[in-house]
Each structure stands twice: as structure tokens, then as C-alpha cells.
């Protein structure tokens, strides 16, 4: 267990993010980011699964429980799944999970699903940096502050089309 892991001090806080990437697209993309020497924040640790359909909500919860500050899920773009539709299954679970997480006070930015095609090394870079930046702002994931004031079960806004579009400002 990571219980012995000291929490980073508030200043100099470096988020710890665990990424679950599917083997075919997103993991390949992060390899491509590597072979293209795209530099990005060192805060993520990638766990490879064969398909985003393998990503069990329990992994996400366990990851947060073990002290991660963010979880990034990555799969093939809609229509590109190596196993046809694992990414859709992932998306549906994810949307439901996010509603629960919102109720538990886990900020929206902490758990993110991205479709990243094998050729999009630059998106691995962009998404990672963006997420690290966002979570740096949020600070450490302090679930120990539960119970929290009621949170509206925020509607999840992570749409297939919107993924990656990156809203303005």
C-alpha cells in the first residue's frame, strides 16, 4: 500500500496522475510522443490495458483511493476501436461514474476521458500538460474532506465530439 507515501507539501505540489491507456491507439500515441521527443509534464504514469473497454470504474476509484490526484483514461477515437466498440462502453461507464464522483466531491477535471489516435502523439502531450496544469490549480485530491457540502450531481460534459475540441478559454 502507498500509505507510507508522504503527501507533497502544498507549495511545490506536484499532482500524481495515473493514466490508463488502450494498447492500440493511446499507448501507441504516447510511444509516438516519445519517439518524436515531445516533452511533457512528468506527472503521469501510464498503465497499459488492451482496450479502453477493460477500464473498470473500480480502477479509477482505487487509484484515487491510493492517493492519486487525477486519473486519465485514453482510448481510440470513436469508430477506431481495435475491438470495435470498447471505447463506447468505456464512455458510458465513465459518464455514469463521473456523476457519482461529482456527488462525492471529486472535481470534474480530476478524472478525464480522452480519445487519442495512434498518430496523435501531440495530443498526449497536450492533454497531459493541460491536465497537470488544471490539477495543480485544484491541489491535492482531499477526499478526507468528505463529507462535503452537497454537490449537485453535475452533468457530465465530456461528449464524443467535444473530446479534444478544447473549448475557448
Amino acid at each position: 500500500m502507498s500509505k507510507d507515501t508522504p503527501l507533497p507539501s502544498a507549495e511545490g505540489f506536484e499532482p500524481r496522475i495515473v493514466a490508463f491507456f488502450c494498447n492500440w491507439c493511446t499507448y501507441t500515441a504516447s510511444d509516438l510522443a516519445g519517439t518524436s521527443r515531445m516533452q511533457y509534464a512528468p506527472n503521469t504514469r501510464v498503465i497499459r490495458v488492451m482496450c479502453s473497454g477493460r477500464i473498470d470504474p473500480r480502477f479509477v476509484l482505487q487509484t484515487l483511493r491510493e492517493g492519486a490526484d487525477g486519473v486519465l483514461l485514453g482510448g481510440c477515437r470513436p469508430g477506431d476501436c481495435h475491438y470495435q466498440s470498447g471505447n463506447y462502453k468505456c464512455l458510458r461507464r465513465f459518464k455514469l461514474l463521473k456523476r457519482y464522483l461529482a456527488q462525492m466531491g471529486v472535481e470534474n477535471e480530476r478524472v478525464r476521458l480522452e480519445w487519442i489516435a495512434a498518430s496523435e502523439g501531440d495530443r498526449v502531450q497536450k492533454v497531459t500538460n493541460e491536465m497537470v496544469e488544471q490539477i495543480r490549480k485544484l491541489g491535492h485530491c482531499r477526499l478526507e474532506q468528505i463529507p462535503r457540502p452537497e454537490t449537485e450531481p453535475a452533468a457530465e460534459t465530456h461528449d464524443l465530439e467535444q473530446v479534444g475540441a478544447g473549448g475557448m478559454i
Partner: protein
Amino acid sequence: MIMHRKSPEDQPRIGVYVCHCGVNIAAKVDVEHVRDFAASLPGVVVSRDYKFACSDPGQELIQKDIREHDLNRIVVASCSPQLHERTFRRTCADAGLSPFFFQMANIREHVSWVTVDPGAATTKARALVAAAVRRVARAEALALRQVPVRPEVLVVGGGIAGIHSALTLANAGKKVFLVEREPTIGGHMAQLDKTFPTMDCSACILTPKMSDVKNHPNITMWTYSEVDEVSGFTGNFKVKVRRKARYIKEELCVGCGDCVDACVMKKEKVQVPDEFNVGLSKRKAVYMPFPQATPACMVIDPKQCLQLMKGKCAQTCVDACERAAVDFDQTDEIVEIDVGAIVMATGFRPFDAKRIPEYGYGRFDHVYTTLEVERLVNASGPTGGEVVLRDGTVPKTVGVIHCVGSRDRRHNAYCSKVCCMAALKMAHLVKERTGAEVFDFYVDMRTPSKGYEEFYDQVLSEGVQFIRGRVAEVTDWAMTPEEEGKLVIRVEDTLIGVARRVPVDMVILAVGLEPQVDTAEMQRRFNISCSQEGFFLERHPKLAPVSTFTDGIFLAGACQGPKDIPEVVAQAGAAAAEALALVDRGHVDIEPNTAWIEEEACSGCKTCIPLCPFNAITRDEEKAIAVVNDAMCKGCGTCVAACPSGAAQQNMFTDEQIYEEIEGVLAYV
């Protein structure tokens, strides 16, 4: 056979090898530190760093340790598993250890190459090593599955790449299916006039190969056909091919052309631009792309033929054909084939010069692309080999512009590799045919292959004027009387450092090479990847340049990236050899990362059954539980994640292994 064995009785004895990869890793990651850190992890018996783990001595070191220290688990922290997982698994297997007791930590692609700060890189590497060590402790002994491989090979695309691959395979005694979308094989090479650098006539070297394909007993050639669907996996692909209706019976047609003469579309204005001549001439509804087309068989264009569109035509073609080969009742036919390997040879598409409006293509009549001029200078082309402009005149001054659509971040950032040489070829040919003054506007001259620089040297000596500068604009805006009525090329002569305006009669745009329009669709259909610029992605640019990330599918020719004919042919040969190596062996080993269901734990809730994309899960009605057919399971793990009873499990990706990895990556401070 898969053994579902829980963790072995014996305690894990783990060996960890931290690779320097020369300086690729060691320059960023403190490998000694990671090595020492690994040594402190539970279960680790040996921990070493090594310069090149994948080298022979590196592998021998691991094997020696396995024997001497009785290691039963191996972790190599090095590059991506996509690259060397197989290498090290084999290392383990050769030392008598089940290859699945091996785990890789990716500290190169995911760490040293992407991290700025060495401290952070080392920390990240430690985390990944910790995770791998914890994960491997939970590894189980599994056996590879062996599946028989079908001996047939499918080649998709009948350009020079596909032709060469098909012939190589067929000559090795394998049955080949060659599927070509157009009515004839030949691809772009068939459209070329002469080929650099030797300037041999393209048709002369290509046509014999085309007829070899047609006549080879081992090759089934299907033109005017497309692959609709691919399923299965390496060694056992099932492919559905759509043979589009030609409306001509291929087995009867002898290509005599009587039907074409008879076709009612006599007037040019009802005819359509001829694809083969890049729109420089017109064709009727029934046509053959070019005289040497293979097969020498007509085709009727359903978007053009009056009978097919409106159901109303005198059908003069039918009457004209003595062999009664015209058949308006033909419909698309779907053929299913089984093949062991697939070679993709779908080629390229020339850059659409209209996308650079400042060059005036499509706006000014006398702006051409190199491909169009290939047809113009060709003796069997629309002008019988005369270089005459659209207004019938012979150009006296010609400008050739390089890098059209290439090396341009607004379009394609890459260099198209063949267009410098193609431009030089045009300069040479046009000068030779017309005696015109030729200006060649280049950015950098790229002539790096055998005989290419020599060709450049020759063109230089022929008196072509070379101006180093990328053209800003081709315009009809005249500043001087001499410019009136001409196309003016505005450019900076960068070697001299002044702006110039060069009036010419004809402009030739050396268009770049782009991925085929439907590459994304093909990528999906064949389940392979594309690189950033949209060409099919090879497994490794140097070490596996013809393999894809999908086992059993190989790449040949310009579909993988811009290249010229010598390179295309070399690659096509390589792809054929790889395919041959696969189908000739007769079987493939398949990773046993399949799912299985724990009988006692399954409640028979049926959640998993509809989720399997390959219908691998069925319900055993007697036991009222779900069962995975592991021959059909491809190991996506969707059912595993969804099972609300924890009854479905996946070999190599068990819940426990992933939980260990989660805890491992987080326990790094």
C-alpha cells in the same frame, strides 16, 4: 492450451534490468539509482543496469542470471513493449522461463524521451519499475496458443508495389489475391512517361509485369474491386471483397474496342474527363483506361452510361459487340476469401494544387501539374506526345515550381521526396521536346539516391535556369509590356537576394504525394494505424518498416510514405518476404491474454454476453453461467471490466495485476 494457474507456489525471485539504451535513457534517468531502488523492492533478487539490454550480451546476462540465481520473474526497464517485449520474452523462454513471467517498464518512450528534468525522469522511472515489479509478482504461467495459418495472401492495390509483392509471393508458390479498385492494375506508374533517373519508358518496364500478374497461375486478380470487410486475425483473416459490376463480361471481352466506337456519346460535351489522362482528354461511358490496361477489358461507367442512369439508350454497344460481352444486368458481387496475411499497397494521391490558390491552378489554363505533363509528353497521351498548351500553342518559356503542397505546414509538413526528381525530369523533357527556356524554382534540391545527383548535373548542363526560391504567386498581373498575356512568377531569387518577376507561357507544379483519400476508412477496416501525416504507420521506421501494429498485415509502397519506384519495389519485396515468412511457417503463436470465467463465481447475470465484440461469450444453459470461447476471444477485457461479480478474468491483465500496478506507480516518493 491455457493453464489457469493461480500464482505459483514458489516465492517470486525477481530480476530487474535497467537499460541505458546507450544514452537514450541514461542521459535523463539516473539508471544506477533506479537499479538500487529496484534492488530494495520486495521479491527482487538481482538488480542490474546495462548499456543495451536488447543486445546479445544483454540477453545472455539475463539468461545467465535466470540460471544462476534461480530467477522466476524478469523485469526489463527499457523501451516500449511494442518494440522489444517479444525479444525479451524469447530471452526468458530460451532460458527455460515462461515468457509470461516477463514484464517491461517503458522508461524510454514514456520517460527519458519526454521529460525535461532528470530528477523528475528518475522519479517517474522508479514508479514504473515499482509497478512492473509488483505486477510481475502476480504473473501466471501461461502458454502461447498456436493457431494454424492459411497459406494464401491478399494484396490490396495493384500499383507497382502491389504488382511486385504479388509476383514475388506467387513465384514462391503462394496463392495470391490481388484486389485493385480501378478497372486496371498499374497505378500511378502506368501514367508516367519516362522514369527517372535512367529515363526508361515506364510502360516498357511496367507492362510486362502487368501481364505476368494477369497470367500467373497463382494470382487471382480482381480489378474494379474493393475490400468491404476484414475480420479474423493474423494467419486467419476473413475478407469480403466487393467485385463491382463492370457491365461487361470479363471472360468474354477481348478489348477490341468496337463497343467504344459504337457508344452513343459521340459529342465531346457529353463525354467526361478521362481519369487516366488526368482530365486532359475525354472518354465515353464505355471505356478502357489505356491501351495496355490489364485486364484488357472494357468497363461501363454507371454514373455516365445512359442505359444505367436513365434506363434509356439505343444500346449501340450491345449491338456492336460480337462476343455479346455487354451485360447490363450485372450487379456487385461479394466474394469471401480466407487468407493468412495481407499486404497493403494502396499507394498515394497527388496533392490537389487547387489548395494553393496563389499558384492559380484551375484558374489559369496554362498552369499544369507534373502528373498532367507526364500525360502530355507521353506518346500515347492526349496530344500524342506533343507539348502543347490548352490553347494549342507550344510554350516558349516554362516555369517548374517545386514543393507544391509539401514542406508547407499549412498543408503537408513533410518532404514528398520524389517531386524534386520529377520536376527535374519535367524540366528535361519539356526542354527536350520544345526547346523552351525552362526555369526551375526550388527551395532545396533533394536528389539523394543512386544516380540522382548525376541526373541533376545533367539537367544543369542542359541549360535549365535554376532559381532558388519558393514562388509566392503565379499571376496574370503585368507590370511591363513583355509580361502582357503571360503568367508572371513572383519569386525571390534567394541566392542573389532580389525579388524577380519571371514571365512564362506555362507553369508546371511539382505536386507532392499525399495519403489516399480513404486512408482513414482503410485504417479502420484493416485495423491498422496511421502516422500523423496520414500514411499507414509502420511498426518501426528502421527495424520493422514493412510491418504494422496488427500482426499479419504488411505495408508496401507509397501508402506508407512518399517514395519513388526503386524504393517502392524494394519495400514491396520486403513486404512479400515478411508475408511469406508468416504463411510459410504454417502456424502463429497467439498471446494468451484471453478472458475466462470462474464457474463458481458467475451468477449467470448475462451482463458480459452482449458486450463481447466477437461473440466469444455464450451461456451454458445447464450450469446457468457464462462461458468464454478462447479461440474467439481477442482479449479486449470489456467483459472483465463489466462483470459485476468479479467472475470474468483476463489472463495477463487480471484485476490483481492491475491493482498491483496502480499501487506500484503511486508508491514512488
